[in-house]
């Protein structure tokens, strides 16, 4: 009891002392603090963008020189002919790269064509107005996607082989992945698509689930990648879902969109309802994948921003108490992010399966549905 009171007193003293020592700020300190805040903001914003080299970290040595640790990635440009060179030529975006008499410079993770001095012109909204060559580079995001794909091929090919060898019994990593695969089959695919048709969607659902999950998990490692938090990648995934839904749609699916009331009503009555209903249904076709892409992108970006800001607080507070608190909070958020990484992969797969289920609904199902409406 006494010890508890003592430790509490000590804590109050420490907090009071730290607050006191913080309050003695000169104008110089205030300026330095504002600079550090801006640095943290820039760092977080930079982390969210894709980049043309794979930087792990950078530090400033005693002589004031900045060192980057990482490796360059290939740059592939289409600018009146294919141009392939290493991103080491940009020196982490600091210098102009000269290739076959053309000059290129990186500004905010985008490559622009410039003159020899590397001038980039901005319009009043601070958007660069320089010409942009078609950029097909293997960026950090593309590199991570290729790595994840190779990892998945090796892992699941290996698992398939071990199943064949052991007579269908899981071994090693299979013991971990089997329940997940079975869960996706039984509780996502069969539950939403139905017993007869789920099989043709299974490869896509499994691939997209593990792809998103692995990339989300890579985003939490010190590699510092943010692939699923990149709107271009989530858009591509959502477009694939949209194409599969559209092209595997049955007659009943399209009938449901363009003629939802069926034969239950004469067309003279239906036409007034359909003026409102059909455009909404058509909009719904596009809103569904759009919600998918925004959800994944926003969740992963938000997670990275929160983690980056919390870690950035250490540099803003610059007291041991602030550092400890931010680190503790960042640790707790990281644990939640591990859950979010799995949950977002699950939600994406789940909703994709739901949309496939709508698209492949059969006639019996449809009549049952109609009966329900009439019954009501």
């Amino acid at each position, binding site marked *: 009891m006494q010890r508890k009171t003592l430790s509490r007193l000590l804590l109050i003293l420490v907090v009071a002392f730290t607050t006191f020592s913080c309050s003695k700020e000169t104008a110089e300190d205030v300026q330095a603090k504002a600079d550090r805040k801006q640095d943290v903001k820039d760092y977080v914003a930079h982390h969210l963008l894709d980049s043309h080299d794979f930087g792990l970290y950078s530090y400033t040595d005693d002589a004031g020189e900045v060192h980057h640790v990482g490796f360059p990635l290939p740059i592939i440009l289409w600018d009146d002919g294919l141009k392939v060179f290493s991103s080491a030529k940009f020196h982490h975006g600091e210098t102009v790269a000269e290739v076959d008499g053309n000059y290129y410079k990186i500004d905010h993770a985008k490559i622009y064509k410039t003159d020899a001095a590397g001038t980039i012109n901005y319009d009043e909204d601070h958007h660069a107005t320089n010409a942009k060559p078609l950029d097909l580079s293997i960026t950090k995001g593309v590199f991570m996607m290729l790595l994840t794909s190779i990892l998945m091929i090796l892992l699941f090919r290996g698992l398939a082989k071990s199943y064949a060898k052991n007579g269908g019994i899981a071994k090693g990593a299979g013991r971990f992945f089997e329940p997940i695969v079975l869960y996706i089959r039984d*509780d996502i695919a069969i539950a939403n698509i139905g017993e007869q048709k789920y099989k043709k969607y299974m490869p896509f659902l499994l691939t997209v689930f593990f792809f998103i999950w692995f990339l989300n998990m890579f985003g939490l490692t010190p590699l510092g990648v943010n692939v699923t938090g990149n709107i271009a990648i989530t858009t591509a995934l959502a477009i694939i879902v949209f194409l599969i839904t559209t092209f595997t749609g049955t007659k009943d699916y399209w009938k449901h969109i363009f003629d939802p009331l069926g034969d239950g009503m004469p067309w003279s009555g239906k036409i007034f309802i359909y003026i409102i209903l059909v455009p909404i249904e058509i909009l719904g076709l596009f809103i569904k994948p759009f*919600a998918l892409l*925004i*959800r994944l992108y*926003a969740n992963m970006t*938000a997670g990275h921003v929160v983690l980056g800001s919390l870690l950035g607080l250490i540099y803003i507070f610059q007291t041991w108490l602030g550092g400890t608190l931010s680190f503790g909070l960042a640790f707790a958020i990281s644990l939640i992010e591990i859950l979010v990484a799995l949950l977002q992969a*699950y939600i994406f797969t*789940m909703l994709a399966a739901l949309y496939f289920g709508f698209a492949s609904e059969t006639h019996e199902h449809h009549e049952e549905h109609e009966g329900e409406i009439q019954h009501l």
Partner: protein
Amino acid sequence: MEIPTIVGAGLAVIGAGIGIGMIGGKAMEAIARQPEAYGKIQTAMLIAAALIEGIGFAAIFAG
């Protein structure tokens, strides 16, 4: 006086938060009443929460 868009975004996020909270609460009540339907309720809860969350994020990006 003009109200900044960020206030509207905040209001929308409060709405989304209340909505997700209600879904979670109701799902718990439902699970307490019918523990054997746990899996189905959880799935339905996650789908509904994910749909509302989308609105919240749309508001954040608009703000």
